[in-house]
């Protein structure tokens, strides 16, 4: 039996869904599951890690981990992996983990596969399916000569069962050796949105040039509020300055994989499709029946997004309140 270390991440003091997915997946692998958490939240979240499947918890609640610093985190994560003897490491393909684990892999001479959409762990054999070439094909990533195998999974790819609050796990607090830092995190400028990030959202409503002007994004926000969705945008409207780049879905924006993606007034240029074709169900609303978005869509409405969106908001309100 080997050890799988799961890097736990938090938002507003709660364990992220993506971390729950990984802990629960690891718990079914037959290996020992180690929950690993850094920062002040770590000290208070140990019970939550156990509820989702961690059998041992390794943490440091040192406040220096409250802001992500690549050098500091690389040193701590590498030390935790080496000390615990973990040979498989799972993390979500989040901003932090995608930055951190390649550097850890270089330090430990380990293998890393990021952006996985499917994973199988059979004994010590780890296989990861991931989209390549902007989702135009898939490949199976395998490890060779890797003493440690690191996998970064996209959010919303694995099932989550309700937490088992009866479970407990022993927790070990660590003091990690601090390297001399050449990186200083000066400040974090908060984003305007309190909603889930596009990369983690389970429902996304996205707008394009078919919305005619920036002010009409309000129609998308209204719908998103009813659905608990996050709002995205096409490159065209980002380049036009209607919305910030952080909302862009597509090749030079974010790659998303929600259960439901509603594209309103988005034509579906290949750069946009590259970022969202992994969505489970796609709804396209466009007044051009030949728009390429319809080739990827599950359901299509040929019509004016400005007319359809308020109706959808109204109908969803009725349906979801029943």
């Amino acid at each position, binding site marked *: 039996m080997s050890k799988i270390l799961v890097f736990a991440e938090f938002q507003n003091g709660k364990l992220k869904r993506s971390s729950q997915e990984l802990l629960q997946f690891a718990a079914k692998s037959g290996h020992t599951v180690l929950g690993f958490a850094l920062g002040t939240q770590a000290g208070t979240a140990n019970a939550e890690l156990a509820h989702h499947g961690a059998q041992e918890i390794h943490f440091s609640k040192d406040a220096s981990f409250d802001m992500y610093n690549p050098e500091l985190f690389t040193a701590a994560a590498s030390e935790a992996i080496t000390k615990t003897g973990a040979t498989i490491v799972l993390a979500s393909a989040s*901003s932090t983990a995608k930055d951190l684990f390649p550097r850890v892999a270089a330090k430990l001479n380990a293998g890393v596969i990021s952006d996985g959409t499917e994973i199988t762990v059979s004994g010590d054999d780890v296989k990861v399916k991931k989209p390549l070439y902007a989702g135009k094909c898939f490949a199976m990533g395998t490890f060779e000569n890797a003493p440690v195998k690191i996998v970064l999974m996209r959010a919303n790819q694995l099932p989550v069962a309700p937490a088992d609050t009866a479970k407990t796990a022993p927790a070990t607090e660590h003091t990690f050796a601090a390297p001399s830092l050449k990186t200083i995190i*000066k400040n974090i*400028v908060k984003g*305007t*949105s309190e909603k889930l990030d596009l*990369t983690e959202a389970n429902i996304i409503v996205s707008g394009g040039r078919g919305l005619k002007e920036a002010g009409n994004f309000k129609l998308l926000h209204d719908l998103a509020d009813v659905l608990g969705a996050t709002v995205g945008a096409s490159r065209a409207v980002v380049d036009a300055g209607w919305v910030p780049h952080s909302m862009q879905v597509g090749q030079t924006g974010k790659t998303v994989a929600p259960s*439901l993606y509603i594209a309103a007034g988005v034509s579906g240029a290949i750069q946009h499709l590259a970022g969202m074709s992994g969505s489970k*169900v796609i709804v396209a609303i466009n007044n051009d029946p030949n728009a390429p978005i319809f*080739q990827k*869509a599950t359901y299509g409405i040929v019509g004016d997004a400005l007319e359809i969106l308020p109706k959808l908001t109204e109908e969803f309100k009725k349906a979801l309140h029943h």
Partner: protein
Amino acid sequence: MKIFVCIKQVPDTETKIKVAADQNGIDTTGIKWVLNPYDEFAVEEAVKFKEKNPTAQVWAITAGPKTRAVESLRTALAMGADEAIVVNADEKLDAISTAKALAAAIKAEGGAHLIFTGKLAIDNNQSSVPQMVAEFLQIPHTSVVSKFENQGESVLVERDVEGGAKEVVQMMNPSLIAANKGLNMPRYASLPGIMKAKKKVVKEVELSALGVAATDAKVKYVSYSLPAEKPPVKLLSGDASAQAAELIKLLRDEAKVL
């Protein structure tokens, strides 16, 4: 003062991808290759730095099969890079072996004051090589950078994270910056730039001369496949209200995503 830009050549987004007969890669016949879009931001930022700091020299570097990979270097040269190096590798490199080779080549040139890269390459979407190069060179890095300011001994950058938030980061030089969209507007190569780039001698380095072997790779991709064919779209009919009502019914009862 050497400024390195690590770049990669990737299939153009519009290119149709076909799986190779042995399923261990893609069929590269007929593919149009371009400079990775994120690397354009990296080249632009390096050239801008040089324009403000006349002692700086911009070195573009790539690893890959040289006859093809050299084309990305020509693009960088045409945009304003001064020198170019290709690490010749016909073998399939993964992120860690690529990073090892790039770091060793940069070291062999006497090291860098700054290194710019794209935040990821759009072919395998891995976003690993920049951080790995920084680790191998034992220098700080920041990825997903949309703002850069030179402060002499250090740089001040902004990194884009979830929810539109930004981390403001200061790094002591030498440092590595992995560019996101928004960092700048890459310039088009000028005609004289293109002519000059064509004549430039690109320095060639063999992988083995850098102490890197294909066996240093830790990750291998196999069983390439195309995405499953999507069933044709189900178009809804009726007026806007009827379509909205039908859609909700389908999402709830058929697709079961609500």
